[in-house]
C-alpha cells in the first residue's frame, strides 16, 4: 500500500492457481515427492555410476515438473495507481473516554482532563484549516457523522459500547471508493470479544490510529460482570454472581448487594494473582414485578474510575406458586368443584377452610371423636393474611365467627395489592351481612342489604358487549364465537342481588332480566380495582354447572376451568393478562442515552386505547418524575416513544399514562430499566494501545503515540486502484504437460532397458 498519489506503479506477486484447491495441490506434491524418492532408491541399484546418475536425474526432473504442474505457480503483475480519497476521522466517544487521561495522576476538578477532552485537542487542528475531504465521525458501538463543535469532552462520552472494527467497516462501506484512509482516535478499550486489531486488512484502506489515555498503574477496583437470572420467584431465594477485577492483585474486597438502597447481603471476595475474583450473594424478592438490585465495591480515595465500582441488575419477579386462601361457609357443589380445580393446579398453593359445623348443628359426638379444628381466624386474617396472593370468600358469612373485626384488615390487605373474590350464595354479599362493611367498600358492586337478597330462578348470564374482550369472560378469541360459547353453557340457578357497579368497576356478566336500581341490567359478575389490589364479585353459587353439568350435555368441561383460571390469574395480576404493555429496547442504559419504548395499550376493560394522546414518563426510585414524552396511539392502541434517560445512575420506572380530561392521568402500563455509569464499557477501561498499534500495522497505517501531534501530511490517505494486470502461468500450458510425458517416457524406456521394473 506504499506509494504517494500520482504515477501508477507495477506490483508483482506470486500466486498458486492449482484448480483443485490447496489441499489437493499439496496432496499431489506429496505423492510426486514420494514417487521421486522411490524412483531414486531404485535407480541406486543400477551397476554403473553413469546409469545411476541419469536415472536419478530423470526421476527428479519428472517429479519436480509434476509438482509444479500440480500447484500451478503464477506470476501476477498489477499496475496500481494510488488515488487520494477522503479521510474519515473516527473519534471514540464511548464512556471509557470519560475516564481521566492520566488515571494515575492527580484529578483536577476544575479542568476536563478526560481522554475525550485530550482527543478533541489533538483532532481539532485537523479541522482548523478549511480542508477538503476530511470527515468526522463519533463512534461507540457504531459510527455516526459528528460535528467537532458539538463534542464537549467528558460529557460527550456517552456511548455504552466500543466496537472499533464495526465502526471502521461501517465508514468504509458508506464511503465506498471515495474513502482514502481512516484515522481512529481511541483508548483502544474495545468491547468486541476476540478483536485484537487484526482482520481489517481486507478493506484495502489504511487505518491510522492515535492512542489516547495513559497506560498507567493507577488503582482501579471494578465490578467486571454481574450474572443473575433475569427471572426470579417471589419469596424464593435467588443468587447473583459478581465478578470483580482490581488493578491491585491479591487481597480481598467486600461486595455489597442492595435493593432500593437497603443492604441485602455482603460477601468477601478473594482476588487472584491477576486481580480477578468471583463471589455469589443471595437475595429473596418479596414483591412481584421488576426489582432493581445493585452490587458495589467500596470506593477507595485513590480509585481511578469510581464509576465502575457499582453495577445494577434487574430481576423480573414472578410467582412460582399462587397462594390462595379459600374460605367456604358450607360444603356445596360449587365449593367442592372450585376446591378440586384449585387443588389440581400444581402452580397453586391452596389453604382451604370449610365451615363443617355451625352452632345449630348436633354432631352427636364428643369433640375428640370429630376431625373438626377451630377456625384460626386470628392466624389467618391477622398474622398470615399478607402471605396470600388471593383470598376467596365463597358463600361465607362473617357474622357467626366474629370476623367483623378483621374485615378492615382484609380490606387494607386488598388495597395494598392483594386479590379478593366474593363468590355468591346465601351467605354472600348483603345476605351474608357484608352491606356497609369494609368489604363492601372494596367490592366492585354494592352489596345489597337484606337477609334474603337473592333470586332463585334459573338464568343464562348475559355478556356485556363493551367488556366481552376481558380475559375472564373470553371463552373464545372471536367475539361471535365467544357469544356462542356462553350460550352453550348450562344455565345457572339463582343469583345474589347486586347493586350498581362502583366507579372504576367493570361489569362482565349481567342477569338476563333483573335490573339494578339505576335501570340497567343487574350485575352478575363484576371486577374492579381497590387500591393496588383487584376484586371480583360473582353473584352466583352454581358455576360448577359450567363444568360437570355442561360436560354431561356437551362432553366439554373446559369453560369452567378456563373461566376460573383466568379469574384467578387476573386477580393475582398475572402479567400475561395485563391489558397494556410497555417495553423498552434495552434493560440498561448509560447516562443520558436514548431509550425507545414500544407500547400496546388497552384500558382496564381490555379495549384498545386508540387515537389517544399518551404520556411516557420516567420516574426515579423516589417517585419523582424525571422525563416526559408525549405520543399518539394508533387505532390498535400501539405507540412508540423515544426519550433520553436520566444522567443519574439507578433504577427507574417507565410509565405509559393516559391524561384525563379534567387533569391527572391513568397509568396504563409500566416497565423498569437501569441507568448505570459502569456497565461493560467501564468494567475494564484500561487503554489498550497494543491493539491500536496492531490495527495500524496490519492495514498499512500510521500509529501515533498518546501525546503525538496529528498532522494531515503525516496521514497518507491514498488507496490503490488497479489499472491493469497480467498473469504468467508457465506450468499451465500444454508444453509443460508434453515435457512431463516425454520425461516420463524416456525414464520408463531406460529403466526397462536397464533391467529395472
Amino acid at each position, binding site marked *: 500500500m506504499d506509494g504517494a498519489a500520482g504515477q501508477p506503479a507495477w506490483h508483482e506477486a506470486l500466486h498458486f492457481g492449482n484448480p483443485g484447491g490447496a489441499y489437493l495441490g499439496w496432496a499431489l506434491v506429496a505423492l510426486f515427492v514420494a514417487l521421486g524418492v522411490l524412483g531414486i532408491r531404485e535407480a541406486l541399484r543400477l551397476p554403473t555410476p553413469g546409469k545411476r546418475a541419469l536415472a536419478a536425474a530423470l526421476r527428479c526432473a519428472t517429479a519436480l515438473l509434476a509438482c509444479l504442474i500440480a500447484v500451478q505457480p503464477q506470476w501476477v503483475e498489477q499496475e496500481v495507481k494510488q488515488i487520494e480519497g477522503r479521510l474519515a476521522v473516527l473519534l471514540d466517544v464511548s464512556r471509557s473516554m470519560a475516564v481521566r487521561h492520566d488515571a494515575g495522576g492527580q484529578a483536577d476538578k476544575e479542568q476536563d482532563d478526560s481522554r475525550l477532552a485530550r482527543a478533541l485537542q489533538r483532532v481539532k487542528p485537523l479541522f482548523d484549516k478549511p480542508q477538503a475531504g476530511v470527515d468526522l465521525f463519533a463512534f461507540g458501538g457504531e459510527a455516526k457523522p459528528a460535528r467537532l463543535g458539538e463534542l464537549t469532552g467528558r460529557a460527550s462520552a456517552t456511548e455504552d459500547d466500543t466496537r472499533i472494527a464495526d465502526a471502521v467497516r461501517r465508514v468504509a462501506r458508506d464511503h465506498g471508493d471515495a474513502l482514502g484512509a481512516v484515522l481512529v482516535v481511541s483508548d483502544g478499550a474495545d468491547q468486541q470479544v476476540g478483536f485484537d486489531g487484526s482482520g481489517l486488512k481486507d478493506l484495502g484502506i489504511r487505518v491510522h490510529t492515535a492512542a489516547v489515555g495513559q497506560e498507567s498503574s493507577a488503582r482501579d477496583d471494578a465490578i467486571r460482570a454481574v450474572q443473575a437470572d433475569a427471572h426470579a420467584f417471589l419469596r424464593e431465594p435467588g443468587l447473583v454472581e459478581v465478578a470483580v477485577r482490581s488493578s491491585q492483585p491479591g487481597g480481598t474486597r467486600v461486595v455489597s448487594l442492595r435493593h432500593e438502597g437497603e443492604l441485602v447481603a455482603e460477601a468477601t471476595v478473594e482476588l487472584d494473582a491477576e486481580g480477578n475474583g468471583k463471589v455469589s450473594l443471595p437475595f429473596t424478592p418479596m414483591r412481584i414485578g421488576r426489582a432493581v438490585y445493585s452490587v458495589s465495591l467500596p470506593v477507595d480515595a485513590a480509585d481511578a474510575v469510581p464509576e465502575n465500582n457499582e453495577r445494577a441488575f434487574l430481576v423480573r419477579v414472578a410467582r412460582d406458586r399462587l397462594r390462595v386462601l379459600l374460605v367456604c361457609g*358450607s360444603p356445596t357443589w360449587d365449593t367442592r368443584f372450585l376446591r378440586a380445580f384449585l387443588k389440581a393446579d400444581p402452580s397453586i398453593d391452596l*389453604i382451604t377452610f370449610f365451615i*363443617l359445623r355451625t352452632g345449630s348443628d348436633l354432631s352427636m*359426638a364428643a369433640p375428640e*371423636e*370429630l*376431625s373438626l379444628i377451630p377456625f384460626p381466624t386470628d392466624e389467618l386474617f391477622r398474622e398470615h393474611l399478607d402471605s396470600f396472593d388471593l383470598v376467596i370468600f365463597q358463600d361465607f358469612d362473617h357474622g357467626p365467627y366474629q370476623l367483623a373485626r378483621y374485615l378492615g384488615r382484609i380490606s387494607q390487605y386488598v388495597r395494598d395489592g392483594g386479590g379478593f373474590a366474593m363468590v355468591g350464595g*346465601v351467605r354472600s354479599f348483603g345476605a351474608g351481612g357484608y352491606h356497609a362493611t369494609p368489604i363492601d367498600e372494596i367490592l366492585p358492586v354494592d352489596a345489597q342489604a337484606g337477609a334474603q337478597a337473592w333470586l332463585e330462578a334459573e338464568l343464562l348470564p348475559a355478556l356485556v358487549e363493551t367488556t366481552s374482550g376481558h380475559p375472564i369472560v373470553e371463552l373464545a378469541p372471536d367475539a361471535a364465537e365467544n357469544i356462542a360459547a356462553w350460550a352453550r353453557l348450562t344455565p345457572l340457578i339463582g343469583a345474589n342481588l347486586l347493586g350498581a357497579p362502583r366507579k372504576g368497576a367493570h361489569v362482565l356478566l349481567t342477569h338476563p332480566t333483573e335490573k339494578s336500581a339505576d335501570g340497567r341490567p343487574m350485575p352478575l359478575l363484576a371486577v374492579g380495582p381497590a387500591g393496588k389490589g383487584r376484586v371480583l364479585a360473582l353473584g352466583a*353459587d352454581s358455576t360448577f354447572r359450567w363444568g360437570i353439568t355442561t360436560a354431561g350435555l356437551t362432553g366439554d368441561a373446559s369453560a369452567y376451568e378456563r373461566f376460573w383460571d383466568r379469574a384467578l390469574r387476573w386477580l393475582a395480576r398475572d402479567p400475561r393478562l395485563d391489558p397494556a404493555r410497555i417495553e423498552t429496547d434495552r434493560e440498561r442504559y448509560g447516562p443520558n442515552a436514548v431509550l425507545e419504548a414500544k407500547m400496546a395499550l388497552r384500558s382496564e376493560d381490555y379495549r384498545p386505547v386508540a387515537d389517544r394522546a399518551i404520556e411516557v414518563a420516567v420516574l426515579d426510585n423516589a417517585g419523582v418524575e424525571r422525563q416526559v414524552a408525549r405520543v399518539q396511539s394508533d387505532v390498535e392502541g400501539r405507540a412508540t416513544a423515544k426519550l433520553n434517560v436520566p444522567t443519574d445512575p439507578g433504577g427507574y420506572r417507565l410509565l405509559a399514562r393516559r391524561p384525563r380530561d379534567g387533569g391527572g392521568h391513568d397509568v396504563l402500563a409500566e416497565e423498569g430499566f437501569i441507568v448505570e455509569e459502569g456497565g461493560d464499557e467501564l468494567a475494564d477501561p484500561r487503554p489498550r494501545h497494543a491493539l491500536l498499534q496492531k490495527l495500524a500495522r496490519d492495514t498499512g497505517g500510521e500509529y501515533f503515540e498518546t501525546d503525538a501531534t496529528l498532522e494531515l501530511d503525516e496521514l497518507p490517505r491514498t488507496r490503490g486502484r488497479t489499472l491493469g494486470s497480467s498473469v504468467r502461468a508457465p506450468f499451465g500450458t500444454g508444453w509443460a504437460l508434453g515435457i512431463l510425458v516425454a520425461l516420463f517416457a524416456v525414464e520408463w524406456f531406460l529403466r526397462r532397458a536397464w533391467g529395472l521394473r
Partner: protein
Amino acid sequence: MSALAALVALLLALVPLEAAAFGDRTIVDIRMVEIAGASLPRPTAALRLAWETRQRTSVETRLPPTSVKLSDPKLFESGLVYWAGDSAFAPLSEAEVTGLRRFVEFGGFVMIDDAAPTRDDASTGFDASIRRELARAFGENELRKMPATHTVYRSFYLLERPYGRIAGSESLEMIERGGRAAVIYSRHDLGGAWDRDNLGNYYHAVEPGGDSQREMAVRLGVNLVLYALCLDYKDDQVHSPFIMRRRAGQP
C-alpha cells in the same frame, strides 16, 4: 343415646329450617340410582342419611332426596349418587354405562351399598352384578381396597373402620380418578343401619349389634357425604396436628 337422638331430631324437625341455598336445585341431593328391574332395598336410607347430614353438619341436603337414572342427562345436575341393591340385576344399557363413566370422569361421586352382603364376602347377587358393571364402565381390576388411612375415615368423624348393618369387611373398596376416590363400595349394608321411621324406630337389627355400631354406620355415611363435598380437605397440612392429637386421645 338413640332415644335422646330421636327426641332431639324430632324437636328439630319441627323447627322450620333456614333456607341455605338458592332453592332445592343447588343443595346437596343424595340421589338414589334407579336401575330398570331392580328393587330399592332400603327406600328410606338416602332420606335418613340426608336428614342426619343436615342435622349434624353445615351441609344443606335436599329433603326428600330424588332419584335418577344413569342414562338421564339430569345425572350431571349434581355431583353425588347413592346406588344400593340387594340382588343381582340385568346388565346396564350402553347409555347407562356411558353415563356412569362420564359422571365419574367429570367429577361425580358414586356411593355403592350392597344391602345383602354375604358373611364370607362371597361375590354373589348384587355384588357380582355391580362388579360386572364397574368393570364395564371403568375397566377390570380398577376396584381396590381402600386403606384405613384414607381421608374418608376423618372427613368429619374420626373412624377406625367401616360399619353398617353388619360389621363385615374391615375395609371399603374404591375406584380412584384424578387422585380422588370417585367410586366407593361398601359391603356392610349401610342403608340397613340407617333405615328407620320418623319416630326413630329402626327397621333392621345390626349384626353383631349395638347402638354404637349403628351410630358408627351413620357417621360413616356422613363422612362419605362430606368426602364427596370436600375431597381430601382433611389431608391438608393445617389439619394434621389436630387430628393426630385426637387420634392419640389428647384434647
